[in-house]
């Protein structure tokens, strides 16, 4: 096993941003012309890793008004294919523009042999994988000049060869590399149902310190198994697990991912308010940790021209 490495220079844990949403093109107009009660937005980095045109213009307008964090889907940190430094530099270039509070991607691989399957594929929780991924996280953090934030994914298969649990793996990875964690509550729920572990055990197995963000999302329940589709409202079970997560991790920046059957902005904001209420309810009992959420005012004098809107190709 590798020795414990210090986090990269200038790393200070990002603060609590409040309650945010995934930025989706269907909502651009409402966001820029209205004043939605959203504290921050998360972008899918790849949707803005394009040469120019309107997507980047809109992104600039959003960044003027809201804190934005970057969430990638193709770093493929766990792949045994070589790290794609061109991709990492493109992420860094976008980060210069966005000034994100943090940059996240998934603890997964997306392809080998020069092919990208555009899916978040599972890894075996072995020391071999841990050594490999930890070394790559170090390299990524060097290129980005900041700690990487990694998210637990939903998985449908698990490997027979396993040296530790998923939560032990995540804990050890963050201890070795100083990376932060994006704790996806729905993904824990989905994987727990699929593989038959106790989500609370997962939750309690993750250290408090590195967790900088929560994801909430809906899924598709097939009874015997669950698929992480991001196309449904968040179910009560996931909200209950969120309550448990807030009890354990405290005030952590929370956002909702919705990638398909996207409802009007007001509906997602209402769903976000439910998360706010749960967090407020839990954190009332821990007043020292609670920072009241200030809803941002946005500058209504700026106008927005409604030209053709691109679709978000990168979703997950």
């Amino acid at each position, binding site marked *: 096993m590798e020795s414990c490495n210090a986090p990269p220079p200038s790393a200070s844990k990002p603060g609590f941003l409040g309650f945010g949403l995934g930025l989706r093109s269907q909502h651009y107009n409402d966001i820029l012309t209205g004043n939605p009660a959203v504290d921050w937005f998360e972008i899918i980095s790849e949707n803005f890793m394009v*040469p*120019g045109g309107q997507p980047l213009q809109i992104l600039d307008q959003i960044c003027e008004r809201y804190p934005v964090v970057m969430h990638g889907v193709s770093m493929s940190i*766990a792949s045994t294919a070589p790290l*794609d430094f061109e991709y990492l530099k493109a992420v860094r270039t976008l980060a210069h523009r966005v000034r994100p509070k943090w940059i996240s991607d998934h603890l997964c691989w997306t392809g080998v042999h*020069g092919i990208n399957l555009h899916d978040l594929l599972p890894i075996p929780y072995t020391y071999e994988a841990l*050594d490999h991924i930890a070394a790559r996280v170090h390299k990524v953090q060097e290129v980005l000049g900041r700690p990487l934030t990694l998210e637990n994914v939903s998985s449908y298969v698990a490997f027979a060869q396993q040296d530790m649990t998923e939560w032990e793996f995540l804990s050890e990875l963050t201890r070795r590399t100083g990376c932060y964690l994006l704790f996806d509550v729905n993904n824990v729920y989905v994987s727990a149902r699929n593989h038959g572990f106790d989500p609370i055990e997962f939750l309690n197995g993750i250290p408090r310190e590195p967790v900088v963000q929560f994801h909430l999302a809906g899924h598709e329940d097939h009874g015997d198994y669950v698929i992480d589709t991001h196309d449904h409202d968040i179910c009560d079970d996931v909200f209950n697990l969120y309550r448990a997560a807030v009890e354990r991790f405290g005030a952590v920046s929370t956002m909702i991912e919705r990638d398909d059957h996207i409802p009007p902005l007001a509906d997602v904001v209402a769903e976000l308010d439910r998360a706010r209420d749960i967090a407020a309810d839990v954190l009332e009992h821990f007043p020292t940790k609670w920072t009241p959420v200030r809803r941002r005012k946005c500058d209504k004098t700026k106008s927005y021209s409604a030209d053709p809107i691109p679709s978000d190709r990168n979703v997950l």
Partner: protein
Amino acid sequence: MMANLAALQHQMQSVILRRTATAQHGGSTTSYQVPRDDLLSQLRPPAHAQTDAMLDIYCNAYRSRLAEVLEADLANLSAYLGKALFEHAAAGYIEAHPSDRQNVRWFSRNMPDFLAATAPFSNWPQMAEVARIELALADAFDSANAETFSLAMLTSISPDDWATLMVVPHPSVRRIDALTNALDIWIAIDAGTEPPQAKRLNSPQHLIVWREATTPRIRVMSIDEATAFDAAQPASTFADVVAAMTSFEDQREAAKAAVGFLAGWAAAGMLACVDTEAANSHPKQETPA
């Protein structure tokens, strides 16, 4: 060190792609079949479902995700082909062209060539051209920014400087020479109306696609205008453009026509200012990751 992880990823990818995997070993390419059972034997049984069914979630999600990308990128082609034929094209394309870019933004880019080269689609050349038009418009939408060379800038050029004036197409510009009435078909589909009967044209239709402010546009150019415009790609002087216009009786006539074309291009935002910094260094392109 990574023997197991690498082997596992290789196996899983082969199973998802449902095909013989090809691996590179120091320059030589080896193909070998990866049976699904090999991978299944390394998986832990899920809580309630069958392992096999759970593995299928990945196989199915891979195809349906890419099919959705194609459907979104080529919505008009899809409407033209109809659901069944488009799904057939998408399925064939997904098998033939696995994504080799980090960003799925560029996954669809080979579809026009695929349709042009693959039966039965190759029997209907308008299909590939409709796809080409649709993707060119999508490319124009988010292509690189550049300061446009405006009509006002053009009219401020003194007569002495015209010959050496650099004519630089805006980075959003795409040129297509269509051999069918694909543009009329595309326009009808885009408007939600019945497309005209497909037909081969007696002479190619010269199309130009570009971005005006933030809006992608397309229009037809005459053969003379297209010849002049193509001479300006990637960047030439006004004199070069005129010299390429050989169909004119003399250079004076050609120059007169070229001035007219240039004014039209400038007014529409098809031209970019010369970036002197970039011109002096290596041509720098924003390469899609």
